[in-house]
């Protein structure tokens, strides 16, 4: 069955090509750091399941050592000049969008189609398989059309990857920290503190503690999924559902969405907030968060009001 067993090695080979490309980039004074970092990611993607838990832990130590010691850099943007690009854009016109659109279109069609083939393709991973197929098709089309030298595509991809840098594995690091927090019982302690702060018998106090607790704990953890079980245990179940007779579906759904408002406001949600800023070459590392806060705060207030009005009828 096709699933992550093919998707991970495929992504791993692309990271291996990034490593090879980084090694050749003499304009980057820290090219060995970049190459080592990408090679470790490639190793994790290709062979992570065979390294054992401790082996993966050591691999993480390697990644952190390279990033933490400042061994990664960026080379000169050795690509085509803006004039060349404008000239080519004028010549190739809207056909340039075709390979770019192959990826989302294949992801869309593939997701729908693969779900009908549960024996051939793991239905849980239909989207990632479809996305990988889209990348293969788009890359194939672009290679046939542009006929670049073999490493050019990977040099260009690596140029974008250098822009993201060590932030590429921050989301995985934070997910792992979440696992350690769960192991250490951090959630129970936080939940106990929040529960103790609510004035006795105050419904609005409990609603505020639950929703603001979801948002704040999400800001700290970078992930509403980590905050949800904690806040449900501390406030949602004892006070809102069992205490005040709230509708469990509404309490759960709106609580999670209050957490999502927190996700919009935190650098800890690196894949949504920091990585795009790097990918778009923004000077302000927190530019995306700044653009989101004025939507997130009023939306959090709306969630508080919705929970208060809808759940306790």
């Amino acid at each position, binding site marked *: 069955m096709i699933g992550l067993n093919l998707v991970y090695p495929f992504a791993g080979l692309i990271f291996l090509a990034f490593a090879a490309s980084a090694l050749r980039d003499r304009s980057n004074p820290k090219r060995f750091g970049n190459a080592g970092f990408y090679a470790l990611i490639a190793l994790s993607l290709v062979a992570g399941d065979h390294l054992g838990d401790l082996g993966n832990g050591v691999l993480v130590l390697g990644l*952190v050592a390279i990033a933490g010691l400042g061994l990664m850099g960026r080379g000169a943007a050795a690509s085509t000049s803006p004039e060349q690009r404008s000239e080519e854009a004028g010549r190739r016109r809207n056909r340039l969008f075709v390979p770019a659109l192959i990826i989302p279109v294949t992801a869309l069609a593939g997701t729908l189609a693969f779900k009908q083939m549960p024996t051939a393709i793991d239905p849980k991973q239909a989207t990632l398989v479809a996305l990988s197929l889209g990348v293969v098709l788009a890359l194939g089309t672009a290679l046939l059309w542009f006929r670049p030298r073999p490493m050019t595509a990977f040099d260009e991809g690596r140029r974008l990857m250098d822009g*993201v840098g060590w932030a590429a594995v921050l989301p995985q690091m934070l997910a*792992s920290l979440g696992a350690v927090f769960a192991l250490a019982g951090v959630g129970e302690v936080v939940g106990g503190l929040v529960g103790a702060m609510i004035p006795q018998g105050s419904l609005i106090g409990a609603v505020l503690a639950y929703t603001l607790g979801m948002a704040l704990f999400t800001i700290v953890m970078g992930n509403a999924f980590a905050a*949800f*079980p904690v806040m449900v245990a501390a406030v949602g179940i004892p006070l809102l559902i069992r205490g005040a007779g709230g509708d469990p579906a509404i309490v759960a759904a709106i609580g*999670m969405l209050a957490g999502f408002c927190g996700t*919009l406001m935190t650098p800890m949600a690196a894949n949504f907030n920091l990585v795009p800023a790097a*990918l778009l070459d*923004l000077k302000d590392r927190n530019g995306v968060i700044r653009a989101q806060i004025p939507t997130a705060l009023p939306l959090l207030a709306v969630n508080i009001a919705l929970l208060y009005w809808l759940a306790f009828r």
Partner: protein
Amino acid sequence: MLVLSGIVIIVAGFLLRFNPLLVVLVSAVATGLAAGIGPLDLLAAFGKAFNDSRYVTVIYMVLPVIGLLERHGLQERARTLIAGLKGFTVGRLLLGYLAFRQITAALGLVSVAGHAQTVRPLVAPMAEAAAQQQSGEEDRDEEAAAMAAATDNIGLFFGEDIFIAIGSILLMKGVLEGYGISIEPLHLSVWAIPTAIAAFLIHGLRLWLFDRRKSRR
């Protein structure tokens, strides 16, 4: 209470701008020690979770295609296309993208768009071009690019929970079942709709204001 030291380290580390990977590792070590987890057990737990969450890193496989297309003028073409369309503003572009992202996410198609697949190659350069045209500024409009990324996130977050088989819905169902409360996924996803509408209205209003601000300059 000592296990909360990890949270303090995370917050302080981010504020003091140490390398975040280092901060995360130190926080994990402090938390583990406070909870009495042995160093090797801690390293193994961390490594296992790292290996289990590799799916977030897979998305970078789109970069060679995107980079190759950019080399041959994709972003420039996206800008020219926008410049040629009369009445096409940054606000309208992003409002349309917000609706597209919310609707596709609500249908469970969360990976159809994203920062690497659509924002960097298409939406951000188009938004920048439209904003530059409206304001008459020569410099790159990073605010418009940031707004494009923000719009992608907001559309995704407040659309996906309407889909019944998304991870967050399954998590909610699982957690509630732990307390003996059984709920159909559909009941959870229905209650994501009011917030989805509010998100569209609030962010839509902000995009409209953003658009006006760009045009007035």
